[in-house]
């Protein structure tokens, strides 16, 4: 198994290469799941990627190679904000997807040919499925995009949430005190859990912050980092900035002028990751 490298500034490409054995497929789909979450896809969408890649790799072993241990499978995941492109390469026999009949939705058992179910699932679950056959190898490219809804967690009215270029911009509009801090913390952690690990907390409408508010920010910042992302703060009011300087928070958090700076800083980080 090999590690990843970068292709171009906006996208990150992760690579994995394994022998064509059924027992290696769970490792491949874990790898794809992590990449899908890193692209900001939801858990269900990441699961759809896993299942499709499972079906694709099973087909490669079963049909392209015709047996286990007959060749290798190379998987590359290209990660962009909200999009994952999975490329799977094998060196076996070309396979004609057109020759596989669509399974029919029927209760006539005789009409069911179980062979085509895998391909059918891939086409249903992924946004794009494309096969290419070269002289030496076959390439399957599958693309999955995050569903349009930018709202990936329920947020209370006092918290505005916007997704921009794969970055979640969270704008609390309340005093960050003992009453409000747990609400904000829950929203931030839910976003990170849902795969949105690059976050900006825009503080322009926070007139006051006390220690539970500070704790909420530190907890979310730590979680974002543990998940391979980061949390930046921007647009601090004079008073809040004063509090941050007194307690040394300006040394922990990256604080930038405004939202646009924060988004471009985080995007640069995603590309380098």
């Amino acid at each position, binding site marked *: 198994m090999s590690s990843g490298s970068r292709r171009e500034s906006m996208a990150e490409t992760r690579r994995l290469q394994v022998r064509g054995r*059924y*027992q290696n*497929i*769970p490792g491949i789909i874990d790898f794809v799941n992590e990449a899908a979450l890193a692209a900001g896809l939801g858990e269900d969408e990441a*699961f759809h990627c896993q*299942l499709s890649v*499972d*079906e694709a*790799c*099973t087909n490669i*072993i*079963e049909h392209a190679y015709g047996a286990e241990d007959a060749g290798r499978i190379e998987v590359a995941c290209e990660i962009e904000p909200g999009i994952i492109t999975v490329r799977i390469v094998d060196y076996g026999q070309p396979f004609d997807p057109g020759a596989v009949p669509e*399974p*029919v*939705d*029927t*209760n006539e*058992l005789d009409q*069911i040919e*179980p*062979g085509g*179910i*895998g391909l*059918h*699932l891939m086409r*249903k*679950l992924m946004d794009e499925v494309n096969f290419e056959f070269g002289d030496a190898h076959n390439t399957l490219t599958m693309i999955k995009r995050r569903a349009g809804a930018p709202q990936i967690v329920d947020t209370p009215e006092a918290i505005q949430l916007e997704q921009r270029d794969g970055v979640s911009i969270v704008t609390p509009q309340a005093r960050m005190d003992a009453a409000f801090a747990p609400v904000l913390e829950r929203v931030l952690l839910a976003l990170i859990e849902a795969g949105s690990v690059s976050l900006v907390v825009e503080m322009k409408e926070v007139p006051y912050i006390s220690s539970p508010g500070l704790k909420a920010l530190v907890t979310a910042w730590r979680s974002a980092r543990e998940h391979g992302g980061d949390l930046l703060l921007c647009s601090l009011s004079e008073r809040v900035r004063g509090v941050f300087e007194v307690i040394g928070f300006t040394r922990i958090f990256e604080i930038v002028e405004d939202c646009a700076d924060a988004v471009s800083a985080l995007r640069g980080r995603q590309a380098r990751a």
Partner: protein
Amino acid sequence: METNVIELKRLDLLEIEGRVDSNTASALHEVLNERIDQGTSNILVDLSNVSYMSSAGLRELVTALKRVRKNGGDLRLCAPSERVTDVIELAGLNSLFEIFDDRTMAVGSF
């Protein structure tokens, strides 16, 4: 994947636990075929502890269903998780199998 067969009066109850995928489907194939070869024609598959199912697993269930229907019996499913239910539906097989939420109800249906 682990399997466990409980012989009831009118049917065999097959409990499956874990991942049912291309790596484990052959083991499922064996256990199903063994029961059918021994003359069982009614099988209830308890999916409540199946964490993951790919088409390789579905294929074995369809193959076994064909065999038992030929013998005048049936293969029914119970308690699939939401994920497994989705996969069965996406594969267009939900109308093929009788699927029960509840295992007791499923046992009683035979």
